[in-house]
């Protein structure tokens, strides 16, 4: 059996693969079967999460012309569509190769970013495939929503060094339009990605005041270079 074609094809090839698939994939799927996947429409529903629509209206007020041109009205439908497009950009630009989306229960991460990640947070359409990430060159983003204003994010995408001196994040100038006069404004991509970043963690009901925004207070002046 151990050197025969059928043994190798059926036992090693199919059998062991399926054993692993059942034990490592089907088991978690069954364990989470009572946490149904939320659609994007449900995610932006103000009765579930009032923050997303608030961020959308905030974008509308800050960038009325771009918003009218690329999004239209600040409706829930447009919000869902924009959020989904934001996720696609996050994926397509490879943001997730340098930013993670889960806070671990170790290494002081909950002090830096907020509550440890829970399974329910990932049971939605925008986490298909899940954006856990593999490397942190930049910080975790799963608690980023609402922490900074959208104009901060717009400036940061234009030139990360403007808002974060010493940052090595690439500039994403194609997220913005350059008008003949005045500062660059976010285009369709810019509005979408900013809304997506503002959505991350916006479902949590607590004021986020992590240590890393306030290092001086925690570690003394020397640490806050």
């Amino acid at each position, binding site marked *: 059996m151990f050197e025969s074609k059928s043994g190798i*094809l059926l036992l090693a090839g199919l059998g062991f693969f399926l054993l692993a698939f059942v034990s490592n994939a089907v088991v978690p799927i069954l364990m*989470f079967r009572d946490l149904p996947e939320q659609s994007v429409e449900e995610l932006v529903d103000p009765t579930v999460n009032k923050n997303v629509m608030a961020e959308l209206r905030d974008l509308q007020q800050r960038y009325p012309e771009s918003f009218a041109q690329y999004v239209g009205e600040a409706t829930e439908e447009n919000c869902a569509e924009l959020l989904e497009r934001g996720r696609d950009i996050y994926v397509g*630009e490879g943001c997730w*190769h340098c930013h993670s989306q*889960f806070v671990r229960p170790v290494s002081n991460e909950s002090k830096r970013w907020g509550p440890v990640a829970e399974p329910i947070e990932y049971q939605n359409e925008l986490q*298909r*495939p899940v954006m856990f990430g*593999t490397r942190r060159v930049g910080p975790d983003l799963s608690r980023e929503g609402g922490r900074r204003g959208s104009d901060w994010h717009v400036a940061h995408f234009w030139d990360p060094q403007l808002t974060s001196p010493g940052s090595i994040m690439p500039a994403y100038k194609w997220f913005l339009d350059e008008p003949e006069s005045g500062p660059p404004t976010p285009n369709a991509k810019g509005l979408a990605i900013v809304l997506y970043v503002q959505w991350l963690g916006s479902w949590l009901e607590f004021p986020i005041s992590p240590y890393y925004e306030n290092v001086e207070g925690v570690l003394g002046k020397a640490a806050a270079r």
Partner: protein
Amino acid sequence: MTEALPAAAPNEARLLVNRPIVLAYFVAALTFFAVSMIGGLLMALQLVGWNPHDGIELLSPGRWRMIHTNAIAYGFIANVFLGALHWAIPRLTMHRVASVQLSWFIYGAWQIVVLATAGGILFGQAQGLEWGETPVWIDPLAQAGLLLVAINFSVPIIKMKGPLYVTLWYFLAAFVWTFLTYAMGNFVPEYLVSGASGGAIAGLFIHDLVGLFVTPLGWGLMYYFVPIMLKRPIWSHGLSLVGFWGLAFFYPLNGIHHFLYAPIPMFLQYGAIIATIAVEFVVTTVIINFFGTIWGSSSILKRHLPLRWFYVGMVFYFITCAQCALQVTQTFQKLIHFTDWVVGHAHLVMFGVFGFWLFGIMTYLFPRLLGREWASRKLLEWHFWLSAGGMFVMFIDLTLAGILQGWSWSMLSPWLESIRISQPFWIVRLFMGLAIIAGFVCFLVNLKMTWSAARGDARQGEPKPVPA
């Protein structure tokens, strides 16, 4: 032990190999290797702040980072594998592949798949899964291609009578696994399963792609080439059996170790940790088997370059696996997950091990394909030493960087502090990458010289045969 080796009929076996297709695969592989190096270089420049093209959409390091990994996996490694399989399988089974026309069709289709993947990523259509970034519309084509590959190579193996040699166990299983793994990774987490359980499947996919596609084909080729080059059988058939079946059983169970401390049920994470440590014991038996094979004549490594690539790759393999048994524990994960430690590990596996083996195979086969010995022995040595030196220093460098990044994060330093302390390490990494690229250029120049000389021979009508 080696009764299946067609030792008695090398000349007949030579006729079964379609040399042009092996050559074509190798040329495609080297092209994509070059593309991948550009991607790596761009990202390395970005990290140290020396990227001259910051802010240009089509040169975005984020996109080129995905081209870097995909071009290596699907463009370089897969192409060399397909070429080498076209060499090894007919010679081992004494049967041709199912159809040479099919081989050429697969060749064309595969290059389209890789090019389209690169193009899709370049224009921002990547999907959100490591090594599964292949845009949606290419996945079915790639899946069909893998099925054809499996058929084309399985036919000669199935036709063969008598016991199968070790190499063919690995190959046969790898054809099934690769097909299933690609299907699992490219369809399930994208369309069917979201969230943490999708993450578990993503972990399985990343891991199986290394463990069930690259590893079995790589070891299968080692079991084929090493005894031929050393002119002696593999040391222990029993250990070969342990190695294959141990890998087949434990490797697929490892996937979730990519997301330890993630919101995936803890008992599954523990299971993956234990299975990973078990794999390292299996790996040790394989390493012992290969070092038992060369025992007593290791001085051959001084002059035999392909064997040197192979055995240095095996030493690196043992290092990565020993490292893996440690880093998979939660103690290490606390510190090193998400850091450059993992990046160093990944480079050592994909380049230091499999890249080395594949360059060794190409170093061995190009003279046999072109009918001419390498033009420059010196350039071959430069290729080896620049690659080996660059890789080893890069590995040490990134491992240290990872530890320091982990400490910086856990002590709650401001985030940019971890970027600042990484700079010296990233600069070293950049130059080690340049060393690897320089070695690759040596190889290309040498190949060009050899090829031109072979053409000159052909024009003068005096081919110089190289022993098969």
